[in-house]
């Protein structure tokens, strides 16, 4: 599903590379936590997956494709098979919940009938049934993140990438979000989640990948957050 072969990434005007010689493999259907302090290279790792950046050295394979050899105009097609969730939700404030989710399908040219069917379905799945016509501003943080997850998942992606999805939420709400991500994972979708939340990682007991200063320092199945904090 995902394979990194000796991947390094350095940005121009920065001496220290963001990623150094990272090699790993993630299988279909896995749930993976990506941990590490700020500046450890987590964001770069995710940006490489999304092909927002290209690796300086090494190869990144996502969904069986070598991203270095993927031409620019094929990138959107590739991204349609990925779902993305962020700490700051990234919802459109002037659209309703249903419109926000529908937007993701509209802009990739899905037919209207399909959109009308898929949107209520996925909102039901994330536990927002009945809130279709609310505006994001009227929702709690947890609910907003559920909308974002619904938007990421409505196209039934093979891979869900979550960048600190619980970073803005209180612990109780976070648990709800984690249950939702777990449920999505159980449908066969691979989930990669970057997080700082020790409690969540320790409770879920999933595979943990730790980065430190761009190096892969730990890859542990059924791992915990780590010793340092």
């Amino acid at each position, binding site marked *: 599903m995902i394979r990194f072969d000796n991947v390094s990434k350095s940005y121009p005007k920065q001496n220290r590379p963001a990623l150094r010689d990272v090699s790993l493999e993630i299988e279909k259907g896995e749930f993976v936590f990506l941990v590490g302090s700020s500046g450890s290279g987590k964001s770069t790792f995710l940006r490489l997956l999304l092909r927002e950046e290209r690796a300086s050295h090494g190869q990144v394979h996502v969904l069986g494709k070598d991203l270095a050899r993927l031409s620019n*105009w094929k990138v959107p097609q590739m*991204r349609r098979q990925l779902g*993305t969730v962020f700490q700051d939700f990234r919802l459109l404030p002037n659209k309703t919940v249903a419109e926000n989710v529908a937007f993701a399908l509209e*802009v*990739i040219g899905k037919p209207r009938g399909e959109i009308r069917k898929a949107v209520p379905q996925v909102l039901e799945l994330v536990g927002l049934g009945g809130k279709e016509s609310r505006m994001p501003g009227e929702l709690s943080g947890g609910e907003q993140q559920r909308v974002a997850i619904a938007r990421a998942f409505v196209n039934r992606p093979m891979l869900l990438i979550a960048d600190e999805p619980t970073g803005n939420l209180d612990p109780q709400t976070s648990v709800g979000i984690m249950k939702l991500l777990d449920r999505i994972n159980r449908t066969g979708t691979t989930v990669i989640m970057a997080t700082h939340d020790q409690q969540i990682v320790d409770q879920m007991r999933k595979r943990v990948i730790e980065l430190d200063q761009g190096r892969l320092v730990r890859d542990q199945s059924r791992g915990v957050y780590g010793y340092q904090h």
Partner: protein
Amino acid sequence: MRAQFVLSEIGVGLRRNLTMTFAVIVSVALSLALFGGSLLMNEQVNSMKGYWYDKANVSIYLCNKTDKANFSSCAKGAVTDEQKKQIKADLEKMPLVQSIHFETSEEAYKHYKEEFGSQPLATVVTADQMQESFRIKLKDPTKYEVISSAFQKRPGVQTVEDQKDTLKSLFNLLRYMNWGALGVMFLMLVVALLLIVNTVRVSAFSRRRETGIMRLVGASSFYIQVPFIMEAAVAGLLGGILACVLLVCGQQFLVNNLLATHIDVIQFIGWDAVLTKLPLVLATGLLMPALAAFAALWKYLKV
């Protein structure tokens, strides 16, 4: 591609930048009106050229009795009948000459009266002050120098004049005006394009949230860019339509109603000339801003 979705995006974008859009429309309209105007001006000059060059003669003005003091070439006094005969005979021998018309001073006086009869000065001029002249039509109008060099120094000849020369300076003046109009057009066009680039930048910035999400969920770059390009194209098209209205008004009120009624000697261009320019103006109005927007997106909207 869902047309309705794109259309609503364009509408939102145009309304959001209403003042910018207005500025784009006006500057595109002015530059295209100047563009069309100078095309028409060019056509006018060409048609006048054909018309006047066709009528243009080489004139050999002969000395009359009052020229003795004013022209060194006439120092020997008025032209004699003998000299006239000789010049006529020589002209008839030249293969270059197509036709010769001798204009008597009475004829010249009559033409003068027709042209300037209403002006006060015309009443002072008498028939015997007018010069006699040979009006010569050449087979090849560019070979004027042949006549000039053969007859300029003849006794009894005051001057040899190529009417094309006088026309030429008039046409040159019109040409320079035309270049000036094109220059102004060019500046206006630069202003218009810069405005479009700026509009796109503002627009891309204010919609970075939408475009960011579109990018993430895998919308094609075409889909992301089209609303911006269409926005510019719609504004440009409106500017083009306004320019067409200006051109049509110019033809109706300036040329047809004003110039044509006051100036009889010039054949002004008609509606067909104006109407054939309009599609070009519209197409330019549509395409130039779209291209400018496309170039701006390349810089300000990472896809």
